[in-house]
């Protein structure tokens, strides 16, 4: 009799334990999934930012806008706080080369393009933490006022740890996994009308840590 009662109690206990474990597990997984997915959408522009021609640069005309959706607003807060609205400035960003490979400090790149259709433009390199790479090269960007370009406005630059004689150089020293940001201040009306059709620079990987790519 006693043995049957004990057995029943043990069965109830097992059932209760099972229930507690199931609910605890799903609550923990739910919390983690919510946090991680929020973190992902706030750091990766893949969802709310659209790709431009050539699948290299991404942008959104809703940056800084009072009409921005929560995802654009959260990503801008995290990775571009105090960005101007599109009428004043359009921003393009990438963290990969023209072949879709992640940009890395260990590799050298050739970046080339033409004069961009804006009153002023620049291309700036940021380290993985979204600040300037911690080096003393004083070469974090190239901009429309100082870039060396040909008569047609075409230019070529180098993104690498060493200048290697390049006329236009962006230092990637100490940048780690790097990202590039294009700023186009007072963009031409055509840019606002067709932001994905702008002829933006290409980024060709040359070699990585001395090994040809």
């Amino acid at each position, binding site marked *: 009799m006693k043995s049957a009662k004990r057995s029943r109690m043990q069965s109830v206990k097992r059932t209760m334990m099972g229930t507690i474990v199931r609910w605890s597990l799903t*609550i923990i*997984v739910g919390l983690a*999934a919510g946090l991680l997915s929020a973190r992902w959408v706030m750091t990766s522009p893949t969802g709310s930012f659209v790709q431009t021609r050539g699948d290299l640069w991404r942008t959104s005309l809703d940056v*800084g806008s009072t009409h*921005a959706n929560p995802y654009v*607003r959260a990503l801008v807060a995290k*990775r571009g706080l*105090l960005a101007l609205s599109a009428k*004043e400035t359009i921003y393009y960003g990438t963290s990969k080369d023209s072949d879709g490979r992640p940009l890395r400090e260990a590799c050298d790149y050739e970046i080339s393009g033409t004069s961009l259709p804006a009153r002023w433009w620049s291309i700036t390199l940021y380290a993985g933490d979204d600040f300037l790479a911690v080096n003393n090269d004083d070469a974090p960007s190239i901009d429309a006022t100082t870039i060396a370009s040909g008569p047609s406005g075409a230019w070529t630059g180098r993104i690498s740890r060493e200048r290697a004689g390049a006329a236009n150089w962006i230092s990637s020293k100490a940048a780690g996994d790097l990202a590039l940001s294009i700023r186009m201040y007072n963009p031409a009306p055509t840019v606002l009308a067709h932001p994905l059709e702008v002829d933006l620079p290409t980024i060709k990987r040359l070699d990585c840590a001395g090994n040809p790519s």
Partner: protein
Amino acid sequence: MKALKIWIGPVIAGLVIAAAVHMVVVLDAPGRIMAAAMNRISDDGARTNVWRHAPRTSIASRNIVRPSPDLAYSSCVFDLSNGPVRITAPSWNDYASLSIFAANTDNFYVINDRQMPSGGADILLIRNGSARPATSAIVVESPSTKGIALLRYLAPTPERFAAAAAARTSARCEVWRD
């Protein structure tokens, strides 16, 4: 079948929790990140309604993500709790802008050098819905009591930065006295 059934409730609860946490974090982030930035710029609220002129952007510039090394920045954390705030920005012989951001990060106002009168921008910032004072300044309504005003002066070289630094000293960000 029974083994599967007992998971239905917990799994639905887990999905609801995941969706709720996701949305709360995403919706809360702009205000939280902006508040942290305002605290950094204003020394935890001790220096509001005053321009703070940043030195030339360098590897030490870590208050706001993705600063441009080609621009001279000044920032003012405005607080309309004690009434309107007057914000002025002197003109500049190249690209310059005065932009104003709400507590949720929205850039609700911007004026650049080509849009400014020859003497520069003169803004009276008021809380939206409040009475518009009689003033010659441009009256701008802010959707939030607190936020950030930002000056950008194009200055890609040390020489241009020095000139911009001299030009911006006359900028004002202060509680308006009628």
